[in-house]
Each structure stands twice: as C-alpha cells, then as structure tokens.
C-alpha cells in the first residue's frame, strides 16, 4: 500500500470519518486541491462541493459539503465541515426540488436586506453545488 495520510472529517455533531487515505481532493474557495502525504501545512476555506477520497487512482468515497474549513499539517488533513452528506445518499429529485425552492425564495424576496440576500444567494449556491454533485455521480 502506498503512503497514506490521516483524513478526518468532522461536523459539529459527530465525527464522520477518521481513516488513513492515499489522497483527498478538497473543494477550496480558490479551486479544488489534492492533498497527498507530506503536504505543506495549509488552512483553507471550502466552498460547497465534493470531497473525493482516492485510493490509487480510484475514487472510493465522495462526500458533499456545504462549506467549512480544511487544515492540513504533518499529522494529516482535518476538515471541519458543514452539512456533510454522502453523495451516494443524495436523491436527485429532492436535490432538484431544493434548488428550485431556493431560487424561488431568492426571486420572491422583496427588497431583502444585504444579509438576507447574501443568505439566500448562499442557499442557492449550495443547492446548485449539490445538484452538480449528483449529476457528476451519474
């Protein structure tokens, strides 16, 4: 087996994953980046997107996150995630519906305050990313 790093995925309520992996690809705000063992220490914001866990060149797991933070150091890679879900468990119809609802909420909001608009736009972005995640799986 090739060299591995410890990958940990936690959300506020529980630990979702803690295991040695060969590589993870994370959706950073400035583009996806892969983390291999001995990666340089890094802290990054995550955008809504998919975390892919690799074994060799094969993807073993795909996990959707709505956002969060990633920290890479010599001990491994830690992701503090929000709204994490296994991509396999996402249901296409429900995701499409959620996106439609979010878009409608944004369109319906009359003169939203700046924060309100930011919040709604964020909801749409998350829903869209989730749909992309489902589409990419198929």
């Amino acid at each position, binding site marked *: 087996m090739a060299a591995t790093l410890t990958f*940990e995925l*936690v*959300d*506020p*309520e*529980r*630990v979702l994953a803690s295991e040695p992996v060969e590589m993870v690809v994370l959706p*950073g*705000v*400035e583009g996806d980046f892969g983390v291999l063992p001995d990666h*340089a*220490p*890094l*802290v*990054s*914001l995550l955008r809504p997107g998919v975390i892919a866990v690799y074994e060799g060149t094969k993807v073993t797991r795909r996990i959707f996150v709505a956002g969060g*933070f990633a*920290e890479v*150091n*010599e001990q491994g890679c*830690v992701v*503090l995630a929000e709204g994490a879900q296994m991509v396999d468990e996402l249901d296409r119809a429900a995701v499409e519906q959620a996106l439609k609802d979010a878009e409608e909420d944004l369109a319906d909001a009359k003169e939203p305050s700046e924060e309100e608009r930011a919040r709604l736009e964020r909801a749409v972005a998350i829903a869209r990313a989730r749909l992309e995640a489902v589409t990419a799986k198929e």
Partner: protein
Amino acid sequence: MPSLKDMRTRINSVRATRKITSAMKLVAGSKLRRAQEHAEAARPFAAKMAAMLANLAAAVKDQGEAPPLLAGTGKDDVHLLVVATADRGLCGAFNSSIVRATRRRIQELKEQGKTVKLVCVGRKGRDMLRREYGDLIVEFVDGIAGKRRIGFADAERIAQKILQLYEAGEFDVATMVFNRFKSAMVQIVTFKQLVPVEPPEAAAAGEGVQAIYEFEPDEERILAELLPRNLAVQIYGALLENAASEQGARMVAMDNATRNAGEMIDRLTLRYNRQRQANITKELIEIVSGAEAV
C-alpha cells in the same frame, strides 16, 4: 388526630408520588446517558476548531489587524450575559444555582458602573430573572432543552442573535452562564466569555512548535468565517453540557425525593398501625368494662 381513613389516603398519595419520582429518576438517567454521548460526540469538532483558531489568531496577531470579534470593541461598558437554564423544574438546585450566580454577577457589574443586558436561554431562567431584572432581558430563546437532541442549528440561531446585537453595538463583552457537567452529582456554574473571543493557547492546542501555515484565501477572510462559526460551536458545547447537567441534577433530585417518600411512607405506616392498635385496645377496654358492669 387524623382518622384512620385520612391516614390511609395520605399513605396512598405519598406512594403515588414515590412512583412518579422514581419513574422520573429512571427517565432522567437514560436521558443523561444520551446527553453525555452527544456532548462527547461534539467534542472533537470543538477541539479541532479551537486548534485552528489558535493558529489563525497567532498568525493575525503578528500583523496587528484583528477583526472586532477577536479584538473586542476596545471598551467594556456593556456586558451581555447569556444565561442558559432548563425549560423545566424538578431538577434540584440546577436552575436556581445558575440564577443565583447570575444575580451576583449582575450586582458586581452594576457596582462597577457597567450596563448589563441579558439573553435568556430556557424558560426557567427567564421566569426567575424577569421579576427583578425584566428590563435587562433583550432576547429570549426557549424550546431547546426540551428537545430529544439539541441540534447545531439551535446553537447557530442563538449565535446569530448575539452577532446581530454585537454588530449593532449593543454590547462590548458577552459571557455565557451555564452548568458545566462534572458528574451526575456535581455541576459547576461556569462563566465563559464568548465575545471578544479569548484565543486559546496555541501551545495547548498543538505540540510545541507550530508549523507555518499557508492560508487560502488569506488569514482575514478565513478568520471572518471562522469566528462566527466558533461562537456557535462554543454555544453548542455549552448547551450540551448544560443539558447533561440538567439530567444529572434531575436524577439526583428525584433519587432523593424517592428516598424521602419511602421514609415518609414508613413513618406514616408506623403511625397508622399504632393508631389502629390503640383503637382496638380502646374498644376492647370498652367491651370488657361494659361486661364487668353488668
């Protein structure tokens, strides 16, 4: 002197009470176990976040540009106390000890000439503080402690409100008051400062020398995202501790109540039997002396 029938009724009513308290004890016991598990499960996230925050805070400190959530407003005139209590009673001194500590703190702050504002989480705390400090309560949240499971969303909602108040310049320092769970028997009233964030010791979070991190996009933006989230995490942790403490306190209180009810039943039964015997004796004497007179 109560009649025999009255005493029987009394004994039965105490028996019924004992049944209730012992059932509540069992329920609190199983809820306590669950609450502890939740508190346990939430710990890794909080620890990781504290470590990350320590790194970031250290990095930003060198540059001297810290966001207000970290640096504070530069004053400490207005204090916000976030008081977390239960929604229900019957849990011993759980609620009153928080309220007592809060009162003392309010008094202290007032003596120092500071303004105090209150955010009440949980119905009991509000009810007890309302009479004295009703005008200080700016926000009230309930329906959290009663839930089967406290969700992160609940904590986020509270954090959101606190952030709004902070951005509006409503307070300078926020402190959370809650019961820290030590064991089922012991809860410790704790004051935890939420805003400005006290940066955790970097050395405590990692081991010794910290690596030089790269930041993407940059420290300020990550910190701007991380700090509000950290607030929610802190509140979440406190709420979970509080929930576990509540169940622990209730379990102990109900255990005592069950024991007291048992003692009371014994005492009443003894009195009841004595009374019954006295009655019988009296009747016998009456019969005997009646027979002798004939």
